[in-house]
């Protein structure tokens, strides 16, 4: 591949992702309305699509206020961290054959590393706000994300064992015959739950919890800084959906249609699932979330790991 092709891929991926993140504002509000028997935003433009423009304009023109009691430098850098770390993760995702920004041989580890750096955004944002509700949100966010990172990493190890590689391209190629969702059903379910907790979306939006903590870690943020947290969240949803597709649903592979279209269809199916979860499930209590993680998910994921290892060894021995 020439240098120009690389540049085009990088720019294309960035353009599409930022537009998807913005478009999800409209999609989520329309879908939530559909599932709640309402109409949702339907006035501005066709199907109310221009609500995205209106929302963005509003965010840009709002006063960007930094509270005088906040730690200014950290307050400013926190929203950038979440967007940067999620965008970095998209570097390793193979969207279609040969459409990948960087084909790293430690792909999954890179994904885990970036998602673990995303925690800083919540922790630092909540701490720098110097507000007790923000701090409580940050504390919850830190413990939630550190805990669920463990299960996320372990749930992926079954896939790594079956493929024998951390490279996402190899993982997609290994699912040529059977998708990993059929051979690793438990791994898939745990990865999806951990992914929802990592992006702190409902029902796991405990760091925000607007009914108890105002807005949690971003209570003091306004204007485009709040917008960055918002975009980071939607990018996170897209990223977890795309990773689920790559790791468990065969990535871009599929009959008849072009690979890129298959990848988009599968990813959007999972984005819809995220929105449906938000529309239908209530938020658990904080201690329930932690107990559920450490007492249910951790034993399950370890059993999955051991069983996968034993079966993989047995299959290899019989060949």
């Amino acid at each position, binding site marked *: 591949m020439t240098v120009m092709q690389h540049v085009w891929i990088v720019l294309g991926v960035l353009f599409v992702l930022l537009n998807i993140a913005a478009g999800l504002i409209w999609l989520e509000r329309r879908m939530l309305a559909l599932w709640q028997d309402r109409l949702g935003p339907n006035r501005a433009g066709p199907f109310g699509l221009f609500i995205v423009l209106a929302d963005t304009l509003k965010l840009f023109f709002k006063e960007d206020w930094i509270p005088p009691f906040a730690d200014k430098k*950290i307050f400013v850098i926190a929203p950038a961290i979440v967007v940067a770390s999620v965008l970095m993760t998209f570097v390793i995702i193979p969207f279609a054959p040969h459409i990948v920004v960087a084909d790293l041989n430690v792909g999954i*580890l890179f994904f885990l*590393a970036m998602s*673990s750096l995303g925690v800083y955004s919540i*922790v630092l944002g909540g*701490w720098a706000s110097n507000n007790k509700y923000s701090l409580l949100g940050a504390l919850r966010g*830190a413990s939630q994300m*550190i805990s669920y*990172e463990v299960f996320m990493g372990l749930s992926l190890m079954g896939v790594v064992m079956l493929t024998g590689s951390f490279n996402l391209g190899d993982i997609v190629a290994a699912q040529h015959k059977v998708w990993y969702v059929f051979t690793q059903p438990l791994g898939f379910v745990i990865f999806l739950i951990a992914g929802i907790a990592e992006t702190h979306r409902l029902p796991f939006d405990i760091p925000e919890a607007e009914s108890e903590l105002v807005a949690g870690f971003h209570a003091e943020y306004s204007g485009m800084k709040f917008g960055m947290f918002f975009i980071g969240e939607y990018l996170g949803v897209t990223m977890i959906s795309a990773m689920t597709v790559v790791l468990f649903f065969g990535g871009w592979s599929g009959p008849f249609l072009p690979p890129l279209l298959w990848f988009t269809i599968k990813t959007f199916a999972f984005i819809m699932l995220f929105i449906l979860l938000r529309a239908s499930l209530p938020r658990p209590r904080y201690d329930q979330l932690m107990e559920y993680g450490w007492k249910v998910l951790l034993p399950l994921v370890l059993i999955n790991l051991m069983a996968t290892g034993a079966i993989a060894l047995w299959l290899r021995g019989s060949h």
Partner: protein
Amino acid sequence: MNLLFYISSAIAIIATFMVITRYHPIHALLYLVASFLSVAMIFLSLGAPFIAALEVIIYAGAIMVLFIFVVMMLNLGDDTAKQEKQWLTAKVWLGPSVLVVILLGELIWLILKGNPSSVEISVVDARKVSAALYGKYVVAVEMIGFLLMAGIVGAAHIGKHHRKLTHRFLAEPQNGNGADAIQEIQKEPLETVN
């Protein structure tokens, strides 16, 4: 590759220096995160992508978050920064610095004398690391496992607490004197007020 190595080493040194000289604990910890990230970059430039990824996941992503978590809980204000300022006097740091500068001189002499580029760089992938860990060093890995287990058991022991005070609606009548138990529970908060 060499240029990458020198840039990330320079960042590591600067970041670590900033860690020592910051008065505010959270700012110091953030520089420490930057230092870990640059060390990961050094590993990557030396052909160890697996260790580089683990450096970011474990040190920068998990351990430092816990450090920041604890510092956040301590709620150290400006007073600690002032205290820190008083502690960091020339009398304290001069002695160790002189000793370290001597070591640095030795290192520079060694590099100038020897041929640093003779250090051969070979890519160590995840498979090689695992083969070494679970083949050659399997006893050491298991010993470390026991050590970590001891830590978990200790944490579980410290974290375990017997509930002394149950809510009066939940207090079960025992040996027929349930009423007394309820009375006791109601009395307790009053005593603490006095």
